[in-house]
């Protein structure tokens, strides 16, 4: 049961990687990065259940916040450098 879910999540991560490489704009890549981040959280949680190791969930919990903060950070840096001068 867990192995099927793990394989599906890995395929979803691969599809996210394809979008990350192909994405024309930076925002596609940041979006793909954010998606792969949450998929990794789920992968770690499922693997923690598969191997019977409950402490994996702490890693997944921390990684949710890290991936969120990293998305906001990348966007903030990009907008501060390339934002339109006329927008508020």
């Amino acid at each position, binding site marked *: 049961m867990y192995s099927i879910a793990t394989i599906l999540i890995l395929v979803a991560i691969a*599809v996210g990687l394809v979008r990350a490489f192909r994405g024309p704009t930076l925002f*596609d890549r940041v979006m793909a990065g954010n998606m792969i981040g949450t998929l990794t959280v789920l992968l770690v949680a499922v693997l923690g*259940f598969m191997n019977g190791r409950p402490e994996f969930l702490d890693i997944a919990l921390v990684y*949710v916040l890290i991936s969120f903060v990293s998305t906001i950070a990348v966007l903030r840096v990009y907008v501060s450098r390339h934002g339109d001068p006329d927008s508020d």
Partner: protein
Amino acid sequence: MLDMLLDILSWILLLGGALFLLTGAIGVLRFPDFYSRLHAVSVCDTLGAGMVLLGLMLQGGLTLVTVKLMLIFYFMVFSGPTAVHALAEAAQVSGLDPVEDDPEDG
């Protein structure tokens, strides 16, 4: 009898969530425009993750594991839409305008 029922229910939820993740990922790949892809990402994040985590919660039973899974889901529900909003706002500020007509179907 009850735990057999719980196993089947968590099995269905887990695989349903994984399938939703896959459809969200394929949606991210195939949508023509950045803003429509944002929709696919948020669907994939909140719904697919919610079902997978719910399926794991049923497996975990009433222990600390379920509390951690709820915390993960709690942060995911808050951080997902916020990140997608920040993405859309940053794209809008930087002058990325949505594609009005789909180029493929002319």
